[in-house]
């Protein structure tokens, strides 16, 4: 881990949806090891620095992948980045998903919108070490069919045996033949062995609250439900306090936090 941004050259840019794009960076061989769920601070020189989850394969540390949604000044400017551009990278930061704790358990992954990005590195890991885990269920929600990030790749995952993968959108035109409805509705459709299930979710916070509530209603214990929270981050080193979440700092203690440890905070609108 470094405190100073290292220059990294953009190898390719892939546009996922109208406002979401993926940057693949050249990194030196064996260069950037990370745990699924960790993030980097990505610096567009002269514009600013933003925390972005690593969405590549942890089994391929020679490749660094970030999927970004253009929503603020920095990420909107990043949308203009071309192949060959140089950006600054520092990291990886954060704790990542509980992949060791999940060993031998059924794993339920619930992604909403761009929440699929930090979960994709987890899915790569789970699929690579498929026999180390129990039943794998991946539920993906998006606003509309045009907003599904990694749509083609999810289709490829679906064709692979060994996982239940369901995708839903909040609304769609008549041509869409998939599920329509909120992602929490998918939870009611899948069989769960609550006693041996561990769940990991990422997406808009309100979606994660509803997801957590549905999982608890299905009998999954709060100590086995993990959420990736997002807060305004600046230093990513637990110094500046921008991402403080009562006694936790999302940059260092998170971004992945256990439901039972943050449950009461989730319902407080002031936090």
């Amino acid at each position, binding site marked *: 881990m470094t405190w100073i941004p290292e220059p990294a050259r953009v190898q390719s840019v892939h546009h996922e949806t109208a406002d979401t794009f993926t940057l693949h960076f050249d990194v030196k061989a064996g260069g950037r090891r990370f745990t699924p769920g960790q993030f980097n601070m990505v610096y567009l020189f002269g514009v600013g620095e933003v925390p972005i989850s690593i969405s590549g394969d942890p089994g391929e540390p020679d490749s660094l992948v970030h999927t970004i949604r253009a929503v603020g000044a920095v990420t909107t400017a990043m949308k203009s980045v071309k192949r060959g551009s140089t950006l600054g990278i520092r990291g990886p930061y954060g704790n990542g998903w509980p992949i060791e704790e999940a060993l031998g358990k059924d794993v339920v992954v619930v992604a*909403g919108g761009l929440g699929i990005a930090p979960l994709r590195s987890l899915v790569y890991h789970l699929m690579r070490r498929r026999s180390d885990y129990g039943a794998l269920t991946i539920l993906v929600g998006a606003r509309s069919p045009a907003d599904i990030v990694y749509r083609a790749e999810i289709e490829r995952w679906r064709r692979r045996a060994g996982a239940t993968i369901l995708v839903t959108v909040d609304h*769609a035109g*008549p041509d*869409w033949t998939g599920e*329509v409805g*909120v992602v929490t509705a998918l939870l009611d459709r899948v069989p769960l062995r609550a006693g041996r299930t561990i769940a990991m979710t990422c997406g808009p916070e*309100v979606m994660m609250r509803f997801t957590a509530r549905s999982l608890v209603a299905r009998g999954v214990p709060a100590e086995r439900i993990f959420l990736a929270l997002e807060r305004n981050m600046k230093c990513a080193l637990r110094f500046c306090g921008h991402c403080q979440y009562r006694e936790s700092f999302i940059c260092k203690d998170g971004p992945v936090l256990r439901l039972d440890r943050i449950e009461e905070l989730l319902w407080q609108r002031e936090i």
Partner: protein
Amino acid sequence: MEDLERLLREHDFLKALSVEHTRLLVSCAKNVRFASGDFLLREGAETSTFYLVRVGRVALEVAVPARGVVQMETVGPGDVLGLSWLIPPYLSHLDARAVEPVVAIAFDGTCLRGKMDADHDLGFWLAMRLFEKAYARLERVRLQRIDVYGTP
């Protein structure tokens, strides 16, 4: 008839209903099939049918002028379809279109209302179960209404 009773007992909606009450419902029910593209319900049309979906998926749709057809939600195996049969004037508020071949149990709403009226224990049980389903759907609609994936 025995088969139909078994199908009723196996469906998620009626699983917890007593054997005695399930038997009472059999005479109102029939097994139905729809091809992909068939409509189970049409917006504005009088409806006295209540469906328990067994196989396949049904889209609940609204035609929006100048925008086209919008799918609001899909329902699948284990779900219920149609609540308008319970409340006068018994008009469907949505189109329901099979997006793949559908197998369902169709209840005659008039017959079902008669049974609920004649046996208030059965009526209360069914009304509470329908309320549970309607409340869950309301919660899902609220979440959709927030547009959680919109620009922050």
